[in-house]
């Protein structure tokens, strides 16, 4: 695997990391504590394709040398690898079972069943799946209920692979074990902690 050796080959990270990452984190925790809420991600990153600015901002905010990243085939390009290695220092793992964060593109099949769900004593030792999508709207066919939601919230997220919702439901069916999901579009994020119940309702 070749690694870009000149800093000029690597897209810039946050201009002001302490402030930029604080603002991105507040967007992420707002999304995680209010499932279905679509939150704008501040910043003006210009990451290598196929990463969107919002996805790159979330990863740069949360990943570092303490975290293991699993990248889907679509993201495992030389440019993305160099970008993430340089800015986060995170170790990249081949086996999703070792991942703290797994990153995949919406239309790709995400390795949901293989991600760590934690243990009964330590359910926090579980993965967060970050899925980059094209559409993210807080009005849509998905009906969400659970902690963080007043009565119910709606979500439209696309594209997702066939079987995504069933795989996610299986992964979170044994609370407190489970995985948490962050969706990132070009400019926004939304999140589904393991506590959120999702049902599809057309119209």
């Amino acid at each position: 695997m070749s690694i870009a050796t000149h800093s000029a080959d690597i897209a810039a990270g946050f201009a002001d990391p302490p402030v930029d990452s604080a603002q991105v984190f507040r967007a992420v925790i707002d999304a995680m504590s209010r499932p279905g809420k679509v939150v704008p991600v501040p910043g003006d990153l210009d990451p290598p394709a196929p990463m969107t600015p919002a996805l790159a901002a979330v990863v740069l905010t949360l990943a570092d040398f303490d975290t293991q990243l699993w990248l889907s085939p679509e993201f495992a390009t030389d440019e993305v690898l160099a970008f993430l290695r340089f800015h986060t220092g995170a170790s990249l793992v081949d086996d999703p079972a070792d991942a703290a964060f797994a990153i995949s593109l919406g239309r790709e099949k995400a390795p949901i069943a293989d991600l760590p769900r934690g243990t009964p004593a330590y359910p926090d030792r579980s993965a967060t799946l970050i899925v980059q999508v094209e559409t993210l709207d807080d009005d849509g066919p998905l009906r969400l209920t659970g902690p963080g939601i007043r009565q119910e919230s709606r979500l439209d997220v696309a594209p997702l692979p066939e079987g995504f919702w069933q795989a996610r439901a299986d992964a979170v069916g044994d609370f407190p074990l489970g995985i948490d999901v962050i969706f990132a579009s070009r400019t926004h994020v939304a999140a589904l902690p393991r506590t959120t119940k999702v049902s599809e309702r057309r119209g």
Partner: protein
Amino acid sequence: MTATGPLPGYNFAYLNEQTKRMIRRALLKAVAIPGYQVPFASREMPMPYGWGTGGMQVTASILMPDDTLKVIDQGADDTTNAVSIRNFFAKTAAVETTTATAQASVIQTRHRIPEEPLREDQILVYQVPIPEPLRFLEPRETETRKMHALSEYGLMHVKLYEDIARYGHIATTYAYPVEVDGRYVMDPSPTPKFDNPKMDDCAALQLFGAGREKRIYAIPPYTKVISLDFDDYPFEVQTWEEACGLCGARDSYLDEVILDDRGGRLFCCSDTDFCEKRRAMGYRGAMSGEPQEAAE
């Protein structure tokens, strides 16, 4: 760095970025598993453990430059702990500070929840001394962790029952255990049980940091928080026969202040902002030294 910016030589909000990322990851898992205590690598802070180092680390990790910070200690904005922490973040993060609950976007608290209902755009950060509600019943962490894993909370009910057997009522008045979203039993930190109902279905995100014990936990907004009780001994909050001596409030948590050695005492709101706001609106209590024009 400008003259109005954070103190030169310090990172924004004091903590280094790797520490903040570690705490932020813990916070996200805490929100995803309501009431569960996430272990985190608590850092040394420039004050002793027991003075709110956990709350400060959480606040430092969530703070943005355009936040407005309020810090309270037992409801008061003007005690040493509250003033010091407020000044600390005014210096290291250059954030606006306030004593008005309604104007704050982040409120760090030691042992009270403001009387004024919190909003969706606010975050409440609790300083927690002992996060484990089962700790005084079972000292071994390996065992309490197993008890949480198995939802084995019978011992907690025995403790409350022993209160009834001994005193005729549940005598636990603060750090009163709650059940979060039907799963984890959680210590609400030593807030008076008067504040427990405010945790239920709260519009604001509630974050808890225990620095010495190295635990972070959370209650997402609009989450069911139930105070443990029995059908025949339902949960009740404290009540007072007195009204606030300064503002006349009858619905707030009152502190009892001894005035002299002849039995003189003043009951007044523990939430100083709530009390001042009421007095500014014209409400007067029996001991305000002014005519009780609009007193209730």
